[in-house]
C-alpha cells in the first residue's frame, strides 16, 4: 500500500471575523490516493473552499496534519507554501484566472517561467494541448476565447509543471451545460491518461459524478457518500 498523496488528519481552521471566531473546518480527516479523482461536494459555507485553499498552500491550517506528496503543511513557512504552489499543486479556478494581457501560450508559459522550467513543451504536454483543443489557439488572447476554452487553457496551465495534485474549485461554475460536460470529460481524461491526481470542489452533484470518489462536506466536516 503506497502512502496517500494527500493525507489529512484532524484538520481545523478558525478565522477571526470581527470579534467572532469562525470555525471553518472542524476536524477533517481525508486520504487521497495517487492518481485518484476525488470530488468534494457541499453547499456554500460548508468549508470546502477553505479546504481547497489550505491544500493549495494559499492559507495555513490552524491545527491538524496535512501531508501533500510527503510535505507537511503545518511546518511550512510562507515561502515554503509559495514553493509548494510552484512545484506540487496546480489550480483551476471557477473564474479561470488567466492573465488578460498575455496570449494563451504565454499564460501557460508563465507558470513554467515561475517554476524555472526552460525549453520546449514535452511531447506529452503537446498531446494534452491537442486533447484540450487549444493547440491552435496559443497566440490568442483570453478575451478572444469562450468560457469553456478559457477554462481548458487554465487546465493546461495547471498541469504544465506536472504537479502532484490538481485542485479544481468549481471548474464548471461559470460554464453552460455543454462546456461543463466537456471540461469535466477532459479532467477525467487527464486523470486517466496521465494518472493526474485531481481534487475537485463543487456544489453540483452532476459534476461530482465524473469523479472516482465523492465526499460530502457539511459544517466543516467531511462525510463519505
Amino acid at each position, binding site marked *: 500500500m503506497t502512502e496517500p498523496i494527500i493525507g489529512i488528519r484532524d484538520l481545523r481552521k478558525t478565522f477571526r471575523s470581527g470579534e467572532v471566531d469562525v470555525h471553518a473546518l472542524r476536524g477533517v480527516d481525508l486520504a487521497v490516493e495517487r492518481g485518484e479523482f476525488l470530488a468534494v461536494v457541499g453547499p456554500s459555507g460548508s468549508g470546502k473552499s477553505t479546504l481547497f485553499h489550505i491544500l493549495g498552500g494559499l492559507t495555513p491550517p490552524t491545527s491538524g496534519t496535512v501531508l501533500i506528496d510527503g510535505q507537511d503543511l503545518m511546518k511550512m513557512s510562507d515561502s515554503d507554501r509559495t514553493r509548494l504552489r510552484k512545484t506540487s499543486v496546480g489550480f483551476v479556478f471557477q473564474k479561470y*484566472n488567466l492573465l488578460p*494581457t498575455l496570449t494563451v501560450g*504565454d499564460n501557460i508559459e508563465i507558470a513554467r517561467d515561475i517554476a524555472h522550467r526552460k525549453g*520546449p*513543451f514535452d511531447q506529452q504536454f503537446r498531446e494534452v494541448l491537442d486533447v484540450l483543443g487549444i493547440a491552435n489557439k496559443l497566440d490568442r488572447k483570453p478575451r478572444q476565447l469562450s468560457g469553456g476554452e478559457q477554462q481548458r487553457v487554465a487546465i493546461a496551465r495547471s498541469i504544465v509543471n506536472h504537479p502532484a495534485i490538481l485542485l479544481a474549485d468549481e471548474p464548471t461554475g461559470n460554464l453552460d451545460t455543454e462546456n461543463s460536460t466537456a471540461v469535466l470529460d477532459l479532467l477525467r481524461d487527464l486523470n486517466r491518461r496521465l494518472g493526474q491526481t485531481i481534487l475537485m470542489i463543487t456544489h453540483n452533484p452532476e459534476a461530482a459524478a465524473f469523479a472516482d470518489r465523492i465526499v460530502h462536506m457539511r459544517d466543516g466536516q467531511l462525510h463519505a457518500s
Partner: protein
Amino acid sequence: MPRYNGFLVYKLVWENLKHRPVRTLLSSLAIGLGVTMMLTLVGVGEGMLRDQEARTRGVGADIIIRPSGSSAIGITPPNINEKLVAWAMEQPHVAQATGVVIYPLGGVSTVHGVDFEALTKMSDGFTFLEGRPFQVGAQEAVIDEYYAKEKKLHTGSIVKMLNRDWRVAGVFRGGKLTRMMLPKTLLQDVTANTGKVSVIYVKLDSPARTAEVIAHLKQTLTDYPIYSMDELASQFSVNSIPELKTFIGVVMTLSVLFGFLVVFLAMYTAILERTREIGILKALGAGQGYVLGILLRETVLLAVIGSLMGIGMSYATRWLIATFIPASMTQAIVYHWWPIASAITLGGALLGVMYPAIKAARQDALESLSYD
C-alpha cells in the same frame, strides 16, 4: 510552443503597458517632462555660453583686456580709460586694438557701443542682410538677424532704448560680438561714460605671440585681467557660473521629485487595478521577488520611454526658442546630459515604485484572488 524563455516577464511588462496606453503615455510624458526640464535648462545654459563664446571669437581679436576687479565673462561696466586703447596700439606686435562699451539694459540684455570701422577691420568685415552700418554720430543702431527676427525689426524700424529712439540702420549676419550695436561715442555720452570703455580687444600681428604680448601688457596693466581668447573660451562653461549650477541642482531635485510622484501614483493605481493578476501569479507560485521584479521592470521601461520622450521634447523646446526668442536664448542639444538626466529620472521613478511594489509583493495571494 515556448518561444520567450527568459523574456516572458519582459513581455508581460510590455503587454501591461500596452494594455493601458493612455496611462502609459501620460506617465511617460510626465516622467519625460523632468528630463526635458533638465535638458532645456542645461541646454540653454550651454547654448548661451557657446553662442557668447562664438560671438566673442567672431570679433577676431587675440587678447581681451577687462577692467580691474572684473570676472572673465560677466557684464562689465565701462570703467577702462579709453586712452589705454591708443596705448595698446603702440605696444610691440599689436596690429590693432579697439575699445567696446557694454551697457546693461536689464536682465542679461546689453547694448554694445563700438567703433564700427575698427571692429570691421578686426573681424574681417560684417555681412549686412539688409541696410548698412550706422553713421558715426547718428542716432542709429545695427542689429543681428536673430534680434531682428525676435523683435520683428527691419531697416528703418525704431528701437526705444535708454530713453531715446534709435533707427535701425542695418541687419547683419549674427555671430560677431553682440546682437545690437550703437555708435560708441554716442553710447558713452548717453550713459555718462565719456572716455571710458568696458573691454579692449587686441589683435596681434602673429597669434603665436599671444603669451608674450600678454606678459608684456601685464607688466604695465598689473591690476587688469588680460586673457587670450583661448583662456576666455575656457571660461565659457556652466561650471564657471555658480548661480547656474545651483539652479541646475534645483531642477534636478525637482525632476527626481516629479518622477517619484508620477511613478508612485501611476504604479499605486496600476497595482490596485492588477490586484487579482498579482494573486494569480502568486497562486502559480510566484514569490515576492518575482512580483517585485515585474513592477521594477515596468517602472524602468516607463522611465526609459519617458526619457526618450523627454529627449524628444528637448528638441521641441529648442525649436520653440529658436523660432520665437532666438536673440534672447539659444538652446544647445546637450548629448552628454542625456544619460545623466535619464539616470536622475530613473532614480526618482525607482524611489516612486518602491512602496507600491513592496506592498504588491507582500499581498496575500488569497485576498488578491478574491479581489474584484
